[in-house]
C-alpha cells in the first residue's frame, strides 16, 4: 500500500482483512499481556512504571531552569483561569470536525469509486481522481487552509461565503478527502475479484455490484484506518486558527498565552484535544485487534 503513505499522521495505515498487506506487531494491545500473565507480572509492571516515572520527574525537576519552566508551562493559577474558556472554545473544534467529516467520507468515496472504474471510457475520470489525490496529498494541509481561508474571501465573488472559517473547513475537506480516498481504494482493491465475478454472473450490473457487494465489504475492512484519519482530522481542526478571527481552542490558547506571557494555556488546549483523541485512538486499536483476532480465528471467508 505504498500509495497510502504521506502526511505525518497517515504513515501507518493498517488494513485488516487484506492478507496481502504486511502486518506489524500489534502495538495496540498494551494491557493484553498483563491480563494474560497474572498478578506477579502486573506488580512488576507497576513497580517498574513507578520507578521510571519517578526518575524522569526527578531528573527534570532538579535541572537548573525547572522553576522558570514550571511557572511558564505548568502554572496552576494560569491553568485554572484559562482552561474553562479554552474548553468552551473547543466546542468549535468539535463542530468543525462534525461538519467536515461527513463531506470527507462522501467525497473520498466518490474519488475512490472514480479511480476504480475499469476500461478506456472512464480514463478521464480515473485521471481526474489520480491528479486530485496526488495534488492534495502533496500539499501541506496548513497551506491549503491558508490559500482558501485568505484567498477565496478576498476574491469577493458574489454569492460566495466570505467567512474564512467556512473556507478553512472546505480546505480540510479537500485535503482529507485525498487521504481517505486512498484508504477506501485500498479497501476496494482488497475485495477479491471472485466476488465481482459472482455478482456479475448473477446478472447484477456494474453499479449494483459495486453498491451491494464491493463497497460494503471494502468499507468494513477499512474502518480502523478511517478512524485513524478521524483522529488526525480532529487535531487538524486547530489549523483553522490560522485564518479565523473567531477563536477556537488553539487560537484562544494563543491569545491567552500572548496576553499573560505564559504558555500554560497552550497546555490547556492540548489537554482538550487529548480528551477527544485518546479515547478515539484506543477505540481504533481495539477495533484493529478485534479484527485481527477474528481473522486469526479463521472466521473470515
Amino acid at each position, binding site marked *: 500500500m505504498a500509495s497510502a503513505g504521506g502526511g505525518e499522521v497517515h504513515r501507518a495505515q493498517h488494513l485488516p482483512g487484506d492478507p496481502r498487506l504486511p502486518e506489524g506487531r500489534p502495538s495496540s494491545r498494551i494491557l493484553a499481556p498483563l491480563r494474560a500473565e497474572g498478578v506477579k507480572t502486573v506488580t512488576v509492571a507497576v513497580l517498574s512504571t513507578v520507578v521510571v516515572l519517578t526518575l524522569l520527574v526527578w531528573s527534570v525537576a532538579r535541572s537548573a531552569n525547572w522553576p522558570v519552566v514550571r511557572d511558564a508551562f505548568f502554572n496552576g493559577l494560569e491553568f485554572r483561569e484559562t482552561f474553562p474558556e479554552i474548553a468552551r472554545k473547543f466546542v468549535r473544534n468539535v463542530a468543525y470536525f462534525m461538519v467536515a467529516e461527513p463531506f470527507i467520507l462522501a467525497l473520498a468515496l466518490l474519488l475512490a469509486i472514480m479511480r476504480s472504474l475499469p476500461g478506456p471510457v472512464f480514463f478521464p475520470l480515473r485521471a481526474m481522481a489520480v491528479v486530485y489525490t496526488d495534488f492534495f496529498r502533496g500539499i501541506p494541509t496548513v497551506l491549503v487552509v491558508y490559500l482558501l481561508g485568505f484567498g477565496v474571501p478576498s476574491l469577493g465573488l458574489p454569492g460566495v461565503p466570505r467567512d474564512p472559517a467556512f473556507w478553512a473547513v472546505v480546505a480540510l475537506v479537500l485535503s482529507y478527502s485525498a487521504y481517505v480516498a486512498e484508504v477506501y481504494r485500498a479497501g476496494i482493491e482488497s475485495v477479491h475479484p*471472485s*466476488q465481482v*465475478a*459472482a*455478482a*456479475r*454472473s*448473477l*446478472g*447484477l*450490473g456494474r453499479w*449494483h455490484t459495486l453498491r*451491494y*457487494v464491493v463497497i*460494503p*465489504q471494502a468499507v*468494513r475492512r477499512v474502518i480502523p484506518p478511517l478512524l485513524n484519519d478521524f483522529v488526525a482530522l480532529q487535531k487538524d481542526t486547530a489549523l483553522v486558527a490560522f485564518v479565523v478571527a473567531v477563536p477556537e481552542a488553539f487560537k484562544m490558547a494563543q491569545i491567552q498565552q500572548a496576553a499573560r506571557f505564559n504558555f500554560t494555556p497552550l497546555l490547556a488546549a492540548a489537554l482538550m484535544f487529548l480528551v477527544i483523541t485518546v479515547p478515539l485512538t484506543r477505540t481504533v486499536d481495539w477495533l484493529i485487534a478485534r479484527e485481527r483476532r477474528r481473522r486469526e480465528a479463521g*472466521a*473470515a*471467508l
Partner: protein
Amino acid sequence: MRAEAAPAAGPAATGEPALRLEGVRKSFGRLEVLKGVDLAVAEHEVVCLIGASGSGKSTLLRCINLLEPVNAGRIFVHGEEITARGVDVNRIRRRIGIVFQSFNLFPHMTVLRNVTLAPEKALGLPRAEAEDRALELLGRFGLADKAREYPDRLSGGQQQRVAIVRALAMEPDIMLLDEVTSALDPELVAEVLAVIRELARAGMTMVIATHEMGFARDIADRVCFLDAGVILEEGPPERIFTEPRHERTRRFLQRIIEAGRL
C-alpha cells in the same frame, strides 16, 4: 417461470439446442486456452466436461457466462447469439447460472440475502416475493434453518449448496457448474452431488466441469473430454469410460483410475 415457458415458446421444438458453441477460441496473452470448441447442448441435457487441469474446462464455462470475452467463435443460447456486439450481458447472464469451485458467497450478507440480492436488484422482484422464493428453494435443498446465518458459519458443503440455490433463484435456463466439489472435504462432496442429481431429475440443462468421474458417469447424458483446448472426444458416458477411442483419453482415464477416482 421462464424455464417452463421456454419450450412452449418453441426454440426447442425447432430443433435449436439450448446452448451451441461454434469454434470458440480464447487466449490469455499469448497462451491460447481454447482452440476452437464446438459443442451443442440440448434442452434438459446434462453434459459433463472432463479433462486434466488446465485443459480449458473452467475457461469454457466462464466464456459461456460471458465472464470472459471470447476471441473468436460464437455462442448461442436458444438460437440467440450472445457473443454478438451490443448484447446486454446482464440479461444473458440472468438466463445462465454459474456455480464456482470456491463458492464465492457474499460474506457480509446472510444466506437469505445472498439468494435474494440478484432477483431483487436484477429482476426487480419485490423483497417479500424474492424472500418467499428463496426460502422455498432453501427448504427444498435442506437449508431452511440456515437462512439467517452468515456464510462463514456454514460448512463448505452447505456453502456450496447455498451458491447453487443462489444461482437457481434467478430461474436460469442453463446451469454451469465449475468443479463445484473440488474445494470440499471428501465427506461433504456427497451432499452437493445429491443436489445436482436433484437438478438433473428436474430437467435442468447443465454443463458440468468435474473431476468426479463416478459422478459424471452416473449423471451425464454425454461426456466431453477436453484436451489442450479442444473437445477431443465426446459420447455417452458408458462408451467414453469403457472404450475411449483416443489415445489421450485413454491415458487420462488411466491416470484417474490409478489415482483411485474411478
